[in-house]
């Protein structure tokens, strides 16, 4: 196995070749395919949608820069893109720690929507908070496996750990979440 996962039969290969040639339709297709995933990864890692958008933009800048130089067959594009995005998130998390205490988290404005919507936002925030309290590696393992739906092998590659280590991170993370989210499990 190479550094960034099994690149054989990479489903993104054909599209990436067209992107490298400057094909505008392919560029739009790649953004449509990857942007929601990358934004979701950054949002769940950072817990901040605005910062997540900045990270997604930076990640795509790297895609545009590296697409013409991409070594096809040497790496799996999606795995590489996840790694790039996570690294950009880590940079921001590091800067946050170095900065003095940030503003308090935004409060939900009850005027924004109906009761059901408000309740959904509150439960979403509850899960987000529980996830944010996990040790970083456990959170990342759960985000990559559960939300990004990466295979155990690809998630392990992104995190740079063995599959056994990934399994341990997932089990510990899920155990902690089970305790914190007791009320939400039906």
């Amino acid at each position, binding site marked *: 196995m190479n550094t960034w996962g099994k690149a054989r039969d990479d489903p993104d290969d054909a599209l990436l070749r067209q*992107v490298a*040639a*400057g*094909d*505008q339709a392919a*560029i*739009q297709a790649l*953004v449509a395919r990857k*942007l*929601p995933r990358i*934004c*979701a990864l950054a*949002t*769940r890692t950072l817990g901040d*949608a605005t910062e*997540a*958008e900045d990270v*997604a*933009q930076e990640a*795509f*800048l790297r895609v*545009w820069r590296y*697409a*013409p130089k991409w070594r096809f067959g040497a790496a799996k594009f999606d795995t590489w893109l996840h790694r790039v995005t996570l690294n950009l998130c880590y940079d921001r998390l590091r800067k946050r720690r170095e900065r003095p205490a940030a503003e308090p988290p935004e409060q939900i404005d009850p005027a924004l929507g109906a009761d059901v919507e408000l309740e*959904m936002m509150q*439960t*979403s925030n*509850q*899960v*987000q908070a529980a*996830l944010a309290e996990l040790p970083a590696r456990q959170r990342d393992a*759960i985000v990559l*496996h*559960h*939300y990004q*739906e990466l*295979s*155990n092998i690809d998630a392990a590659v992104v995190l740079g750990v063995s*599959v056994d280590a*990934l*399994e*341990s991170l*997932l*089990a510990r993370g*899920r*155990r902690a*979440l*089970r305790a914190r*989210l007791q009320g*939400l*499990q*039906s």
Partner: protein
Amino acid sequence: MTSTSLSLERFFALADAYGGDLSRWPEADRAMARDLATASPDAQARLAEGRALDGALDLFQAAAPSAALRLRILAQAPKPRAISARAKLVRRLSWLGAAGALTCGVLAGATVVAVSAPSHIDADSLSGVYDQASGFDGAGVG
């Protein structure tokens, strides 16, 4: 994995790590896990626990990326490749070649006409040449 069965202990470990949806388990373990889940109430209970947590995790919705972000990203994307300088030169030369050939053809034709034409052409003979060339025989013209 080469074994053909899964211990209950290993099943629990996998459920704790990968949750209640067998399609998210490692591919090599799925068939054996399905068999065990069918046969063992304990395995089923563990999967149900996993599904409950999966459901709770799914409540954390990440907002879809904004249209503005999409536009910003597309604006930074590589532009279609411009025609290379070499291709431009080849294109210019081919146009010049075509124009040159046309000019030569016209000059050569004029020379032939000048050499072979009679020294004086009266209006009637010129009219006949024109009619022949245009396929017009004058029929129906009155």
